[in-house]
């Protein structure tokens, strides 16, 4: 079993995540797609760490997970407050920050 399969899986996951971010309107779904992309990156990192026998990849993956957790907290909080004020979780409805 080569690392190719892992990398292909990671690429598929990333693509799904990226497309999800671009096409979905629901902020929660966009958020989950971002998580998907982060995890596809984590998978890639672990794969290479494993194949080269070094530890750095795993360390970075742990960092990513920690940052992602923190980001989830803040992100969900923002989404919650937006939902409370605007009665909607669509990202297209919050476009006040523009020119």
């Amino acid at each position, binding site marked *: 079993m080569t690392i190719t399969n892992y990398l292909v899986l990671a690429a598929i996951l990333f693509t799904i995540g990226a497309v999800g*971010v671009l096409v979905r309107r629901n902020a929660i779904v*966009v958020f989950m797609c971002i998580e998907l992309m982060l995890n596809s990156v984590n998978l890639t990192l672990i794969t290479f760490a494993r194949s080269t026998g070094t530890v750095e990849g795993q360390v970075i993956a742990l960092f990513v997970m920690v940052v992602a957790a923190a980001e989830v907290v803040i992100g969900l909080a923002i989404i919650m407050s937006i939902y409370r004020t605007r009665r909607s979780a669509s990202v297209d409805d919050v476009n006040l920050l523009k020119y």
Partner: protein
Amino acid sequence: MNEVVPASVPVDGLLSVAWLVIVLPLAGAALLLLGGRRTDRWGHLLATGTVVAAFAVALACTLALTERAGRTVSLDLFTFIDTGNLDVTAGLLFDPLSAAFTLLITGVGALIHVYSIGYMAHDPGRRRFFAYLNLFVAAMLLLVLGNSYVALYVGWEGVGLASYLLIAFWHTRPAAATAAKKAFLMNRVGDVGLALAIFLMFAQLGTTSYAGVFGSVGLLAGGTVTAIGLLLLLGACGKSGQFPLQAWLPDAMEGPTPVSALIHAATMVTAGVYLIARSAPLYDATPTARTVVLAVGAVTLLIGAIAGCAHDDIKKVLAYSTVSQIGYMFLAVGLGPVGYAAAIAHLLAHGFFKAGLFLGAGSVMHAMDDSVDMRRFGGLARKLPITFVTFGLGYLALIGFPFLSGWWTKDAIIEAALDRGGVSGWVLGGVAVLGAGLTAFYMTRLMLMTFFGRPRWEEGVHPHEAPASMTAPMVLLAFGSVAAGFLLVSVFPLSGWLEPVFGEPEEAAHLVSPLVVSIVVTIVVALGALTAWLFVGRREVPTTAPARVSPVVTAARRGLYADTVNESLVMRPGMWLTRALVWLDARGVDGAVNGAAAALGGGSARLGRVQTGFVRSYALGILGGAVLVAGALVAVTA
């Protein structure tokens, strides 16, 4: 003639306070201007007193000067500017030439101050008038007494300022304000020439003092001397109302009449003659420039005389007469050593009789409710006897009636011109003789229209003789008009007195005998006077100027189109240029700046539209960027 380098002998005694001549009137002016209304009551007396005192000092200094060897005194006062190679010392040069001028300025100046006491008695601005008059006297004295071209330049501009202030004295009259501005501006054009001449002297010789410059004329290249000579001439033309800068002088008659007498007849306008005479060592080294001086003098002499024939404004006729007479002086100084003394003699004599004529004109105006239109005068001889007699003597002196001032000095100039020989001698002599005839014509016309014939006065005018403070100076000046020429040419020959400045007077061989010249000139003058009598003496003078006249008369009335030329060649193009530049600056230069700012603002606004506020479009941008980076990496590594 060789370079005349004034010897700097240590100065002691009376001559060491020669600076008082300048400081006295200057202090008077300062006191009157700063003192304000407190000095209203006695200010005019103080002003007159300072000039009289200055005359006394000048007279004493001149007497002291006659006893000194070389008759030249240089007096250094203080360092004006000293930096690098330039060292300008404020100093005075008291020599026969400047002494003659100083006496003229303070003498005639004192008389005109006295006259003004009466003339300006009821003017609310009397104090200001006397302050300006004092300022003028001080500046004019600095002009003639300075020992360097820089000092002369300071005085030169100072008299320009005083002339501006005095022409515009009745400044609520727009014509007076405009005439003053015109005078100052045309003078400034000349000043550019004078300034450049000084720059050129400094660049070539490293000095601007008379002694330094005249001492090293020989070091200068011919072209440079000619350039300096022509530039000085430009300055002289501006100040003396000579062609092509003569148009301001007739307009300057908007000023009070004593001003016209002192500044625009006797003294300031002759500063150009002084400048050229003072620069004799320079002009002696450049025949070219001297020829141009000659030409300017001859042309102006005719222009002034012709224009004088057609005017009805008594002061303008006298003004054009001044232009013409200074033309004679330029002609004389242009002739070189043979003419310098003649020019100065004519200048001094002219100072007397022209000042007297102007004061007489002022007296006439005083009598006629400030009217200057000779067509509304007539028959004044009986009403104004003293004015008539003094004016008449001045008139006779001016036209060159035998044995009066003008006869001596003008004939000397005509003789000198003829002595030049060749075609140019005959042409110049002819012009001078013709000018004498024209002078006789316009002056006789003036006399006849003013003092003779039937009264053509406007209603309500009651002519009366002027007070004694006005007539006394007129009488004194009339004495001068009668005697000055005889005294200056025969009794105390001016050429001898001026020898330290211009060198030994040459006894030129006369090509035409002086007697013949005299007879011819007298005949021409008589013809001119006769013609005038035929025109205005024999028949009634219409009270309005005839409208249908020949083109020659029209041209003369308009001063030979000098104003028209100035207007169409300088004023209008200048105005268009100014307007175009204002537009260019606002639209072009500033437009570029504002345009750049607007473009930047507009561009950024347009670019800002990319920020739609839609998160997903930002995400697409990020993805696109990432793909681009990745693609670039692949392309580079592949």
